[in-house]
């Protein structure tokens, strides 16, 4: 208590105990991967391979011109069988490259350590990070190289080690298992952005991670501040974390660099370190596979393109039929219509909810209890927008600024009348465009 935080939010039941102590394990090589060419916010990649081609692990198989995009790489070695539309966990369906494994996991010889990265210029650092296809691994998958070249002067780099989504522990495991590499990555990001002040925010329900980082930072004499933040959802939302750590508020419709801040996820910093030091492209990531009915919930290092079904099966399957499979956490994650979807760069977790855990309670009338108003991290009036949406008065709802909503879902979570407030607000947002 007493740690830094933001206004609003709610203590959401975390369920992290399922995988908190599960050390990261590498998944077996998948026999086949489906690698979407759209794994990031921005322009979809063009395929650089065709059916029948042989590819190596880490070989670039898709890229695009333009600023906001990131290349994609083969995550196994083998033969390209299909280049065409396939299931996608976010987009439903999107162009993808399917690779059948040769079982050898032969690395692309182009992957070589960079020598001493201290000699690299800022531009070289940024271009290596772009070449490795690094995107934000927290879930939004925004290309990191774009973040590292802010259009306005920035003076603060914030590393997000909060992981406020219930159930997810992949970032936590990285924080406690690989602190030195993450700190290396943070140093690279700091140099790339060109700032002096670096804050590492970690929720205070992760004392081991906080202690580990405080010890390593002081042992290595690094100029970073490790700041415990109050455990409260959505503490890891970008705007709320900036508010908690440096007391700046990103104005509506603006981005962190408008208040002089760049925010990056701790896992992204690790990926940046691997890219720059080892030349390793982003072809695998850590994923929490969890749920109360999953036999052996795990934190897994997964090759991108591995199907959800394969990972769930590798965790021993489930003790009860799956009712819902969510990519990400239960608050902001996306419900999947199939377990055949592949892991993409933005897949932080695979959450299986049993049919018994499905919550679709009937909506009752708003009793104006104001829990949503108190909990809204953007200080909006969710109940009012919800009522407007139900009365189909999108125009009237504009005064409540639905476009400010960060869709964290805390309003729906807390509502005692079980109103689907965020769903209503999403309808307003779509209607308002």
């Amino acid at each position: 208590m007493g740690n830094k935080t933001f206004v609003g939010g709610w203590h959401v039941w975390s369920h992290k105990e399922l995988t908190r102590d599960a050390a990261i394990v590498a998944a077996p090589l998948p026999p086949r991967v489906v690698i979407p060419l759209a794994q990031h916010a921005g322009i979809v990649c063009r395929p650089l391979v065709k059916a029948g081609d042989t590819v190596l692990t880490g070989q670039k198989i898709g890229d695009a011109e333009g600023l906001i995009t990131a290349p994609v790489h083969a995550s196994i070695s083998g033969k390209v069988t299909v280049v065409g539309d396939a299931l996608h966990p976010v987009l439903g369906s999107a162009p993808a490259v399917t690779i059948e494994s040769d079982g050898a996991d032969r690395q692309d010889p182009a992957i070589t350590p960079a020598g001493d990265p201290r000699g690299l210029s800022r531009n070289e650092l940024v271009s290596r990070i772009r070449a490795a296809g690094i995107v934000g691994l927290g879930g939004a998958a925004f290309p990191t190289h774009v973040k590292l070249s802010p259009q306005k002067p920035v003076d603060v780099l914030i590393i997000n080690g909060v992981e406020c989504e219930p159930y997810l522990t992949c970032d936590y495991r990285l924080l406690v298992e690989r602190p030195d590499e993450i700190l290396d990555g943070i140093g690279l990001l700091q140099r790339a952005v060109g700032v002096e002040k670096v804050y590492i925010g970690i929720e205070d329900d992760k004392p081991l991670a906080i202690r580990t980082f405080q010890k390593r930072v002081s042992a290595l004499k690094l100029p970073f501040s490790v700041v415990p933040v109050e455990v409260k959802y959505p503490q890891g939302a970008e705007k709320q974390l900036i508010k908690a750590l440096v007391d700046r508020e990103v104005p509506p419709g603006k981005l962190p660099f408008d208040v002089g801040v760049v925010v990056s996820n701790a896992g992204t910093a690790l990926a940046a370190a691997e890219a720059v030091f080892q030349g390793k492209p982003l072809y695998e990531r850590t994923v929490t596979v969890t749920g109360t009915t999953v036999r052996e919930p795990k934190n897994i290092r997964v090759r991108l393109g591995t199907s959800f079904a394969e990972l769930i099966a590798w965790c021993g399957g489930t003790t009860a039929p799956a009712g819902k499979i969510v990519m990400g956490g239960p608050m902001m994650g996306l419900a999947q219509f199939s377990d055949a979807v592949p892991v993409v760069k933005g897949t932080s977790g695979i959450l299986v909810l049993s049919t018994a855990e499905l919550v679709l309670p009937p909506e009752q009338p708003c009793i104006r209890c104001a829990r949503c108003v108190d909990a809204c991290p953007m200080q909006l009036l969710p109940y009012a927008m919800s009522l407007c949406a139900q009365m189909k008065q999108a125009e009237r709802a504009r005064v409540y600024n639905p476009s400010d909503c960060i869709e964290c879902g805390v309003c729906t979570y807390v509502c005692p009348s079980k109103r689907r407030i965020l769903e209503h607000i999403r309808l307003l947002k779509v209607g308002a465009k």
Partner: protein
Amino acid sequence: MSQAQSNTVVLSVSSSPHVRSSESTARIMWSVFVCLIPSGIVSWNVFGISAAAIMLTAVGTAALTEALFCRLQSRPLTVGDGSACLTGLLLAYNLPAQAPLWLAALGAAVAIIFGKAVFGGLGGNIFNPALVGRVFLMASFPSLMTRWPAPPMFGLDAVTAPTPLAILKDSVQQTQIITAAEIIPYTLWDLFLGRRGGCIGEASVAALLAGAAVLLWRGSISWHIPASFIGTVAVVSWCFGGQGLFTGNWPVHVLAGGLTLGAFFMATDYVTAPLTKKGKCIFGVGCGLITAIIRLWGGYPEGVSYAILLMNAAVPLIDRYVVPRRFGGGGR
């Protein structure tokens, strides 16, 4: 062979979030109901079985009326959400302990019909339903509503005894200077524990506070309305409640009458109170001012119900102008 995965089950797909808190409307309503029960038990002890009969009648009538109107209005049956039973209990707490049972039944029916059902049920009403019922009874049956039984434990045979506030009001209106302590047959400790005349639910401040403490701890209510309401009554009655400035007997004003019941259990009704913390404070201060004005200068010895109802009417205005500051600044 593509997509030959194990997917034979039908998966549920819905908009996030995929988990919900365990709190529900029914849980909130029933917890308030339960937190009112200690006070009811004290009333039963103080006033006898008639108090218990009134409580049962009011709760039962409220539930039946709710069920009837759900049927008439083709709405799903909402008796289980506890709000009708709560309205019935609160109405009973606003009646004298020797009121006839038909009065309790009539009040409860009016509370549900004109306080809630005509607005479309829970969440639509502007005024606190229980207070609508009480004010209707006050206007229609004033004598029945102001016949206060003396608590039997005083050993008096008298059927009626003036309430502490009525005594206080008379004393201030008399020109002779007498201190309240001389003329009020109750000590503050009597008021606190429940040895006094008055409505069923007004008997024991201690029992009400015990229930309120649970609600505050549970997070069902916040301190804003009760604190600002009671604080305002205390300050105004201290300033203007006596013969000169700052001589008012504020402890009696705070402990007597329906202030504790009103401030913790009626003014805090979600549906009819403002949404924001600031709005709640304004609402509480308004309730306190009107209560004090009615008590000190108005025609009635007690003003809590009218104060809450009048401020209920101001809630839409308060909610319109008292809005939280949008994150990131900028106007609204």
